[in-house]
C-alpha cells in the first residue's frame, strides 16, 4: 500500500472504490454498494445522540449494521480462486486478515495490530487511533464471517487511545441475520466531473484529504477534522431498522446533528457558498447535488441521496449559516431523487 505521489491517496483506496459521475462511490464488485466519506465527529455525535434515547444497545446495532455489509464487501473482494485459497489455508487466512487490516488503515479506521488468530475459532487484536470501535468490531466480524464462513460474536474493551477487540465463532442461531439490511433504491445517472490525478486517475479533489498510513487516519485539510470512508448502506441499515422500531427520534437525531454540522461548516469557512456544499456532497459520495435559487429561497436537488435527514440537516445549517437567518425547509422525494427547498424566515 502506498500513497500516490501526486494526490497522496493510497493506491488501495482507488482499487476498492470508484468515484462515479452520479455522485456515489460504488465498489467495483457491486455497484449497488456505495461508500462515503463521513466526518468522525458527526458519526460520534449521531451515536451519542441515539444513545441518550436507546441506551448502550445502540453500539451493538451499529456493530450489526457494519458486520453484514463488511461481510458482503469482503465477499466481493474474495471472489474466485483468491477466496478459495484464503478460506482453505491457515496461513492464507491470516494473511487475508492482515491485508484487510491494511485496507482498514487506508479507510481511516486506525492502526490495527493482529494479535490472535486461530483458524475457524477467533481473531483479535488492538486498534489504535480508533474512530468508533463498534463499527470496527463489526468490520472484523464481517471479515471473520466471510473468511471462515461461520457466524461470529464480538467484544471490545475501550481505552483512551486504543481498544482491545476479540471476534469469536458464535454458536446457535443468528437472530439478526435478516435484520439491518438496506437496499439501495434506483440509481440515477449524473455527469459530475472531477479533475483526474495525472498519476493515479482518482479525483484530484481528494487531495484535500491527508492520509496518515502509520496512524490509520484521514484528515480533511479544509476542516482539519478526521474523516473515514464507510459503507453508506451500513449507516442506512441501522437508521432504517431503528426508525422502524422507535420512530421519529432517529431521523431527528440525524437531522439535528447535521444541522449543527452545516452551521459549523460555514462558521469555520469550510463552506463559503452553495457551490462548496454541492461539490463536497459529490466528492464524499452523498449524491449528485444541484443548487438553484437566490438568497431568500434555495432549492437543492440531489440525485442518489445518501440519507434524507442527513442532507436536509446539512443543507438547512449551511443556508442559515450563509444567509444569517433561520430557514424553513420542505422536502419532495421520488425514487433516487431528493428535492429540498429552504426559505428564509427573516430576522
Amino acid at each position, binding site marked *: 500500500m502506498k500513497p500516490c505521489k501526486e494526490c497522496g491517496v493510497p493506491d488501495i483506496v482507488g482499487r476498492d472504490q470508484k468515484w462515479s459521475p452520479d455522485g456515489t462511490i460504488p465498489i467495483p464488485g457491486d455497484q449497488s454498494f456505495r461508500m462515503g466519506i463521513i466526518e468522525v465527529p458527526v458519526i460520534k455525535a449521531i451515536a451519542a*445522540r441515539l444513545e*441518550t*434515547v*436507546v*441506551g448502550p*444497545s445502540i453500539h*451493538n*446495532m451499529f456493530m*450489526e449494521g457494519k458486520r453484514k455489509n463488511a461481510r458482503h464487501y469482503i465477499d466481493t473482494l474474495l471472489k474466485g480462486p483468491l477466496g478459495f485459497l484464503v478460506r482453505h489455508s491457515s496461513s492464507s487466512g491470516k494473511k487475508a486478515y492482515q491485508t484487510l487490516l491494511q485496507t482498514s488503515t487506508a479507510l481511516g479506521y486506525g492502526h490495527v495490530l493482529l494479535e490472535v488468530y486461530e483458524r475457524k475459532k477467533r481473531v483479535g487484536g488492538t486498534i489504535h487511533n480508533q474512530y468508533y470501535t463498534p463499527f470496527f468490531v463489526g468490520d472484523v466480524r464481517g471479515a471473520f464471517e466471510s473468511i471462515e464462513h461461520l457466524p461470529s460474536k464480538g467484544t471490545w474493551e475501550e481505552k483512551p487511545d486504543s481498544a482491545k477487540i476479540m471476534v469469536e465463532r458464535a454458536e446457535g442461531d443468528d*437472530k*439478526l441475520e435478516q*435484520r*439491518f439490511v438496506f437496499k439501495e433504491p434506483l440509481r440515477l445517472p449524473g455527469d459530475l466531473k472531477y479533475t483526474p490525478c495525472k498519476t493515479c486517475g482518482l479525483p484530484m479533489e481528494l487531495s484535500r484529504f491527508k492520509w496518515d498510513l502509520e496512524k490509520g487516519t484521514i484528515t480533511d485539510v479544509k476542516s482539519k477534522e478526521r474523516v473515514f470512508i464507510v459503507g453508506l448502506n451500513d449507516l442506512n441499515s441501522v437508521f432504517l*431498522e*431503528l426508525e*422502524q*422500531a*422507535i*420512530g*421519529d*427520534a432517529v431521523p*431527528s*437525531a440525524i*437531522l*439535528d446533528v447535521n*444541522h449543527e454540522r452545516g452551521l459549523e461548516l460555514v462558521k469555520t469557512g469550510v463552506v463559503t457558498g452553495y457551490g462548496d456544499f454541492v461539490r463536497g456532497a459529490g466528492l464524499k459520495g452523498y449524491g449528485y447535488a444541484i443548487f438553484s435559487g437566490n438568497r431568500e429561497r434555495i432549492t437543492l436537488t440531489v440525485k442518489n441521496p445518501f440519507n434524507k435527514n442527513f442532507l*436536509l440537516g446539512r443543507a*438547512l445549517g449551511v443556508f442559515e449559516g450563509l444567509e444569517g437567518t433561520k430557514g*424553513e*425547509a*420542505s*422536502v419532495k422525494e421520488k425514487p433516487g431523487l431528493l428535492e429540498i427547498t429552504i426559505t428564509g424566515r427573516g430576522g
Partner: protein
Amino acid sequence: MAELSEVKATKLETNKLGQEILEILIPRVGAIVAQAMLDKQCTLVGITPSTIRKDHLEVLAQRIEHVLVIFGHDGKETGTKIRALQGLKG
C-alpha cells in the same frame, strides 16, 4: 416542513391496554424506548396508544417481538405477556 427537535421523555397518552404494554416493556428497554416503541408500532398498525383494543394485541405482540430482537432481547416472552392481556378485564 422540517422541524428541529429535542429528544424528550414526554409521557405517552395511553389507554389501559397501552399502559399494560408499557409496563411489560419498560423493564426490558427503559421508559423512553418503551414509549417510543409502542407509539411507533401503533402508528404502523394504524392506531394510537390510546385506542388499542384487544383485537390489536396479536399484531402488536408480533411487531414488538420483531423489534425487541435488535435490542438484544428474545422478544417471545414479551410477546406472550402482551397476548395474555387478551384476558384482562374491562
